[in-house]
């Protein structure tokens, strides 16, 4: 509970518009309903993401790594821009003093945050563009992820 679990990954799975957790077992049980590549934008509650990777935050295979801390509704140190090249593996960790839902737009990666436990999103940069990562409930922008 001290070292490794400090960066406990709660969920690095894709959901339709933050509607709940989606663990691997659920993904398997839902495959019959999903289109192969359907990520998020269907009306279904769950869909598998093409983008999320099951890699821990301290793994050596991560190319771009950023951590963020949210205190009293503000991003400590201000909004940042995370830059990555196509094909790189990106890991974003967010810690918040309130329970929240973390959402990276476009890639539609979602994770729940509990106070004291950061959420981590790990994905392969495979869509170019600028994507906002925000706290879904507060509507707070945390970072812009620029992938080229």
């Amino acid at each position, binding site marked *: 509970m001290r070292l490794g679990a400090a960066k406990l990954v709660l969920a690095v799975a894709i959901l*339709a*518009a933050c509607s709940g957790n989606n663990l691997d077992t659920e993904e398997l049980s839902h495959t019959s309903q*999903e*289109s192969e*590549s*359907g*990520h*998020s*934008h*269907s*009306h*279904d509650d769950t*869909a598998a993401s093409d983008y999320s990777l099951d890699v821990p935050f301290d793994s050596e295979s991560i190319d771009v790594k950023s951590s963020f801390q949210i205190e009293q*509704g*503000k*991003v400590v140190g*201000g*909004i940042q*821009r995370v830059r990555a090249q196509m094909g790189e593996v990106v890991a974003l960790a967010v810690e918040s003093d309130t329970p929240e839902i973390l959402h990276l*737009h*476009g890639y*539609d990666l979602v994770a729940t945050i509990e106070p004291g436990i950061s959420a981590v999103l790990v994905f392969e940069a495979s*869509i*170019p*563009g*600028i*994507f*906002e990562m*925000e706290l879904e409930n*507060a*509507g*707070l*922008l945390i970072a*812009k992820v*620029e992938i*080229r």
Partner: protein
Amino acid sequence: MTLLAHGIGARGDLPLSVGTLAVVAGAALFVSFAALLAGWKEPRLAGIAKGRSVFTVSSGAALLVTTITRIAGALAVGVSLWSALFVVDSTVENIAPRMVYVLFWIVIPLSSVIFGDLWRLFSPFEAIAALTKKFRHAQPDPKKSQSLYGAAFFLLLFLWLELSFHRPAGRTPLAIMLIVWIGWCSQGAVRGGTTWLGNNDPLAVLTRLMSSVSCFTVRKNRLVVRRPIVGLAEVPTQRGLAAVVLVVLGGTSFDGLSRTDWWTSLISGKMDWTRTLVNTLGLLFVTALIISLFLGAVRLMQRKDENSDPMFEDGFAVSLIPVLIGYGVAHYFSMAIFEGQFLLIQASDPFGFGWDLFGTRTSYVNYRIVSSTTIAAVQASGIIAGHIAGVVVGHDRALESLRKRESLAAQLPLVVLLVALTMIALLLLVEA
């Protein structure tokens, strides 16, 4: 960008490279002064704007086509209102936000640039105007110029909702907006018919102005083909034309500004009405800046020309229409492509009943359908083409309306204004 945070426009465009900026800016400057120095000495556009008639549609066929398109338009408006009133408040489940901000606000006006005035074809309010025609006693005189200030006011309100209000994609604000729009246009269609709509329905005014650059237009059941851009010469000078164009230019510029890191940091942590307040000040400031640039340049021209035409600035606002289109393409092309796909997915099951009308219900948005290189190329070409057309039309308009039309000095402020607007647009795209 405000909408981004609320689930529409998940993917933002990459900033333009400084190299692209240099090329486009250089080309813009070169074209501006080349047109001024080597340009023609007589107004020409109005002469070639007539175009030629390709074919005539029988009135029966025209009635059939417009009946179908306007029923489709009524369905689109109706589904939007229904969803805004009764479907769950979510940009994924509810189709209303994308119907309004993507279909009506981006896809219809931008497609009209290519295909001609689509809203005139699809507007359900045109159907109301046609159905109530025989009950109208006093037909408004189409020759008498109507003011566009009403349309400009509603466009400003709409832009405020989209860019400044903190919940632009919320159900309630959208429902209020739709009810006001439908009410305003329906009563006007009954009282003033199609002439009223063309001057007062904000979407109809915007689409009419933007479609004037198109190669296609319809005149009394005749499909007319003309060269691109030349149709601008036929846009009538109306009071408030400058207001309409400047309000939309100001809104688009503020949209660009609000995507910069500087603005994002400024509003970070500001929630709800505080955010609305800051964004309102931003929108008003940028719009006021654009208006002052324009009025400054045009008044200077007017003074140099010793011209007392009361509608002087509205006449020259025509040269900003292509600039406006360029801004629109640069800012919203990718959004139309990506969010348009999302709209198609939602359209299969608009009310969340589990329908699959178009077989797209379980599809997903393909963010790789156009590459970022293509998007950057479209953005740069949109800006440069808009600028060139603006210079050409402005020069032509100057030859037509200036008293001292051989004087290049009198035209210089307009060219400087167009260069300034183009540079602003480019800088905002580089800072995106």
